[in-house]
């Protein structure tokens, strides 16, 4: 086993759904002992969300939950039990970091604010990650990542040029803001390591999500211009889009009988981006079309930018005669930026991701072997290591409540019977 960057760091993780668990996953996958504190009475939403193994709903059967909770422990804690707050404080007293993502009223109601926590553990680092932060008129508002992307200005920029704003297909901010929260959290941990000083991080997801909008804000505040969604187009590159290729050979396709959305599975698209005339020249060479190369509308970058509708239609006539992978290979060998629009299935078979060992297979006690995402970066001395599959609900009650917190067998059994860990 390699050295692990966060060996000896313990996290009491009260967060749930996407953002908080993904922040803690970074630390857990690099060695932090990360304890999810969860209730089966009010289950974590992702434990109830598909996909499930064998399509059977169950709190210990969700792939959605599993992928975000590798390398973690889980202890049950039912916050409506009269001794729950005391138990929470006792685990916090043994921890370095507390993470949570409730609206601010929850921790206040339980008496688990940062001011409360530092009385228990003076150098604790606490990060609170609700949508809108700890203060202000929206602080008690709730929501999820697929809605926050609207508030952050992202959805205004998402969709076709001639269409209404559409959501990204994802709960996008759930997969954007955790990186920023993790950066802030590790910075605070490093500050503590050097100075002994803990702190509180008031992380409002909205404020971080705005960093996904590139120059949307500055173009407005500097030039008084409201940018508009551009589909796949780019102000400095043409062509810059997705083009149809030959359908996937149905014989080569795996079972897609489970899909309830019709058969888009066999569609194949390639993304192509040309930033200058050399790129265009190489593209025309690969496509073997000199008439396209010398077409007055397209033979310089300004012309291609102005005549993009015609350009895209002309290119599609060519690309639809190619297998997507063949065209990608040919274009890349000629130095043109091109890539297949890859599905999840494609990604699992992608030779580059395989070379980088992106995917991990971990054996889960009830789900069996499942695939997990590992970190996207490679550190030479302290690489990430997914040490175990996601925990089943309450899997580590004994370890957490007896070994770490120090409950006696009698206390533990009494609390167990009373439902404190449910």
């Amino acid at each position, binding site marked *: 086993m390699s050295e692990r960057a966060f060996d000896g760091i313990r996290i009491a993780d009260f967060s749930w759904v996407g953002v908080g668990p993904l922040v803690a996953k*970074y630390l857990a996958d690099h060695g932090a002992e990360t304890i999810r504190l969860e209730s089966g009475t009010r289950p974590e939403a992702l434990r109830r969300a598909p*996909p499930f*193994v064998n399509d059977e*709903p169950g709190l210990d059967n969700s*792939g*959605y939950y599993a992928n975000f909770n590798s390398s973690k422990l889980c202890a049950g804690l039912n916050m409506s039990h009269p001794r729950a707050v005391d138990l929470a404080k006792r685990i916090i007293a043994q921890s370095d970091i507390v993470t949570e993502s409730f609206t601010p009223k929850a921790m206040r109601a339980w008496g688990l604010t*940062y001011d409360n926590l530092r009385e228990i553990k003076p150098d604790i680092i606490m990060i609170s990650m609700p949508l809108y932060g700890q*203060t202000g*008129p*929206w602080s*008690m*508002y*709730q929501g999820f990542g697929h809605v926050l*992307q609207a508030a952050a*200005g*992202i*959805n*205004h920029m998402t969709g*076709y040029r001639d269409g*209404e704003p559409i*959501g990204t*297909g*994802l709960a996008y901010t759930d*997969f*954007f803001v955790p990186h*920023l929260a993790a*950066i802030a959290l590790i*910075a605070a941990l*490093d500050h503590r390591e050097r100075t002994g000083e803990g702190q509180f*991080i*008031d*992380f409002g997801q909205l*404020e971080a999500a*705005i960093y*996904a909008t590139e120059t949307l804000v*500055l173009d407005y505040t500097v*030039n008084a211009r*409201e940018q508009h969604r551009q589909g*796949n187009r780019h102000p*400095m590159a043409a062509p810059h889009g997705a*083009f149809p290729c030959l359908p996937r050979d149905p014989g080569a396709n795996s079972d897609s009988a489970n*899909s309830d959305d*019709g058969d888009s599975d066999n569609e194949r698209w390639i*993304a192509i*981006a040309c930033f200058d005339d050399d790129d265009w020249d190489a593209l025309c060479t690969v496509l073997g079309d000199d008439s396209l190369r010398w077409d007055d509308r397209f033979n310089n970058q300004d012309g291609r930018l102005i005549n993009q509708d015609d350009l895209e239609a002309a290119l599609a006539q060519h690309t639809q005669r190619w297998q997507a992978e063949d065209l990608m290979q040919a274009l890349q060998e000629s130095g043109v930026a091109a*890539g297949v629009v890859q*599905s*999840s299935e494609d*990604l699992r078979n992608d*030779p*580059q*991701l395989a070379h980088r060992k*992106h995917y991990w297979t971990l054996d889960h006690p009830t789900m069996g072997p499942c*695939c997990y*995402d590992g970190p*996207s*970066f*490679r550190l030479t*001395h*302290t690489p990430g290591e997914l040490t175990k599959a996601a925990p089943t609900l309450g899997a580590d009650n004994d370890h957490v409540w007896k070994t770490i917190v120090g409950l006696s067998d009698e206390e533990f059994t009494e609390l167990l019977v009373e439902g404190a860990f449910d």
Partner: protein
Amino acid sequence: MVSADSFTRIDAPGPLAPFRVLDLTNELGQLSGRLLGDLGADVIKVEPPGGDPSRWITPFYNDESDPERSLHWWMFNANKRGITCNIADEEGRALFLRLVELADFVVDTAPPGMLDQLGLGYDDLSAVNPAIVHTSITPFGQSGPYANWRGSDLIGAAMGGQMYLNGDPEREPLRPTVSQAYAQASLQATVGTMIAHFHRTRTGQGQHVDQSLQEAATYALDNAMATWDLREVNIPRPGNGRNIGGYKFGRYIYPAADGHMSAMSYGGLFGLTARQTIDWLASHDAAQDLVEPGWVAKLDASQGVIPPLSPEDGQHLADVLAAFIAQHPRDLLMREAQAIRNGWAPVNTPKDLLENEQLIAREYWTDVRHEELDRTFTYPGPWAKLSETPITIRRRAPRIGEHNDEVFLGLLNLSAEQFAAHSGSGVI
């Protein structure tokens, strides 16, 4: 001194204030250096003489095409100082290595192998400074069958799986919005950088961080990977809806009286808040037939796991919601939806964002002075509020070679003659 929000000491230095960064990145990684600068590090952007090509990325201040006026450059290079140094030249390389001795981080976006050829790969850097944390961001990573392929944001979004999940099913797949693959690579590279930094604080040991653009996009695909793994379903692009685990959920963005509203899947009419939502619509005479007991029974999933909903029923909910939302302004919809714990939100335009009462109350927006233009512009503010070591946005992006004097004469202690010689030979 404590700021108005009562949590942050605004006069303290940031957590990375003791550290220095050399930033060799283009648009693929510029946000990474920016974030380290936001945390207080002294970030020195190292550009080729004449300036980095990314200074020409649109839009420009007043639409004047000028390497000092790119808003893209401003956004992603604030909180950095700037020098020019031709690191491909032997003298420039020597100057750069002297800076590496005085630095803690190097971030680059050079194609794999290029810095090694220049004698500036990780092995070269760690030879002069074993504690250096060197982060390299490339389209596909440092090695592997695609390592030397060309990338761009669009290619990262395609090859990393983002585009497959985005767009209308009957039209072409879309990149999610402005450059998200670049943003993902920059953010995730910075997480890796901070992990390496923490390890260095504890052990004194530096290391290399190898970040792939494609892989960063792949790490941001919601439940798509798990859905293939468990169900062998490729989640299709869901248009204006959402797809969780291979199951289609309804439209969630609707035209309101004064813009668009994001109203969750089925607006809360289906699931835990179904009863409250039906009552709410009924209070506006907009519930139509949903008040009938059969509908309530079908939609209320406050107990147990969410059951499936037929496409016809889903379409009916969307039609009822669309008719309701079209009648009302977004602020009323937001307030009343949140009162019954429905997490709706407005689709904010840039103007809406700047006028948003929450961001104003939180003192989010930050003024940045551009003294050469005699103007002050509003920038997005700190992306986290750290109580003891605050994030600050302290300076605008550097002009070409703006800090050559400070860095070469001050930090490196070159003599005026040496500096002039390097300038004359085109190294600086």
